[in-house]
C-alpha cells in the first residue's frame, strides 16, 4: 500500500471502529493512557476456561492513530490465548498501519496492545487467587494536559 492507502485504512478504522464498546462482567478489564496527549483506552476481555479470548471490546478517547489501532487490535483477539497476546508483535501492528504514517506516534499506535499485554501478563497471578483482573477506570480528565 502507498502512504495514502495506509491513511485511508487508518481513517476507516477511526470512523468505523471495530469492537468499540463495553462488555458486562469481563474477566479482564485494563486501561492505559498517554498522559502527555490525552489518549486513554479501556479494554474489556472475556476468557474461556482455557484462558482463550472469546470476546473483546475497547472504549476510550484519543487521537486518530490510537483509536484506529485499538479497533485494529480488536479484530485480532478472538481465539487467542494469553501467551499468544504476549507474543504479539508491535512491529507487525505498526507495519500494518503503515510505519511511515505512524512513526511519529508509535506510542499512540501501540497503546492498546501495550495495555493488553500488561493485563495478560498480570492476569494469571490474579486468577491463581480466584480473582478477575479489574483495574479501576482511569478518568480521561486526569490524563489530559489540563
Amino acid at each position, binding site marked *: 500500500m502507498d502512504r495514502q492507502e495506509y491513511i485511508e485504512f487508518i481513517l476507516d478504522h*477511526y470512523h468505523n471502529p471495530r469492537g468499540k464498546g463495553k462488555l458486562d462482567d469481563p474477566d479482564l478489564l485494563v486501561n492505559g493512557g498517554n498522559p502527555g496527549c490525552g489518549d486513554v483506552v479501556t479494554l474489556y476481555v472475556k476468557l474461556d476456561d482455557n484462558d482463550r479470548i472469546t470476546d473483546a471490546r475497547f472504549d476510550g478517547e484519543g*487521537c486518530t*492513530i490510537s483509536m484506529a489501532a485499538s479497533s485494529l487490535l480488536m479484530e485480532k483477539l478472538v481465539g487467542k490465548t494469553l501467551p499468544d497476546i504476549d507474543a504479539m508483535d508491535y512491529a507487525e501492528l505498526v507495519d500494518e498501519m503503515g510505519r511511515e504514517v505512524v512513526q*511519529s*506516534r508509535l*506510542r499512540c499506535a501501540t497503546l492498546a496492545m501495550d495495555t493488553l499485554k*500488561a493485563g495478560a501478563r498480570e492476569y494469571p497471578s490474579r486468577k491463581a487467587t480466584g480473582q478477575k483482573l479489574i483495574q479501576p477506570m482511569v478518568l480521561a480528565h486526569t490524563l*489530559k*494536559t*489540563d
Partner: protein
Amino acid sequence: MSTNGYAHPEMLVETDWVAEHLKDPKVRIVESDEDVLLYEVGHVPGAVKIDWHTDLQDPLKRDYIDRERFEQLMSKAGIANDTKVVFYGDKNNWWACYALWVFKLFAHKDAVIMNGGRQKWIDEGRELSKDTPSYAPTQYRAQERDDKTIRAFREDVREHISSGLPLVDVRSPQEYSGELLHMPGYPQEGALRGGHIPGAKNIPWARAARENGTFKSPEELTQLYQPQGVTPDKDIIAYCRIGERSSHSWFVLTYLLGYPNVKNYDGSWTEWGNLVGAPIEK
C-alpha cells in the same frame, strides 16, 4: 481581524476572517495538530499541513530544522516572505502556537493564529476539505535561526534560577508534582525524575483558553499570571515537556498580554528531568 483588548490584536484572526480569505493569494492557511492525521480527516479548504515532528524537527539531532530546510519547507508550502501565514490546529491551537513559535525563530514576519482553532471552525459548521492543495514553489529567503531571543536553553534556566526570575511550568498539576511519572501501568514520559524546576510556578497552559478553544480575555489572562508573580517587568521562561504546550503560553504572554521578554525552554522536562545533577523540586 480581531478588535479586542489584547496587546497585539493583529496576532489573531477570527474564523469569519479566514472564511473570507480562503482564496487570498497573500494568505496561506496552515494546519498544525497534535493528532497527526486530523488534517487528512478534513481541513480548512486550501490549508496546507505542517507536522511539528516531521517538518519542523531535525531528523537526527534534537533541534529544529536549519535555515535551508526551513526555506525548502516554505517553498513547498507556497509561502513567500510576505505571505500572511494563518495557523490553526487541534487542542486549543496548542500545536499551531508551537509552529508559529518556530516560524518566529526564523523571523517570518506575518504569522497569526486563528482564534478557536480547528474545533471552533467545525463547531460553526464550516466547510472541511479532504483535497490536498498544491501551490507554486516560492523563492523564500529566511534569516539564520535566532536561538537567543525567544528560545531558552538549560544554561539560561540555571541563570534564571540564580537570579530569582520567574519560571512558568505549564504542565498539568500532576506532572508538576511528579505524580504522573509514577503512575503504575503507564508509559514513562521520557524523564527519569518527576517534579519541577526549582521556583517554577505551575500555570497550566490550557487555562488560557475557553471551552470553545478561543483565548480568554486580557483581564482573565492577567489574573492567571500576575498573582503568581509572572509580570511584564520581568524576564520569563516557560517550559513543559518538550516545549509545545509552553509555546502556547509563550504566545499568550508575548502577544496577548504584551510581555516583552518571554522565552520558551523547549528542552523542557524531558531534558531537565534527565539532566544529571539538575536541581528538582516536588
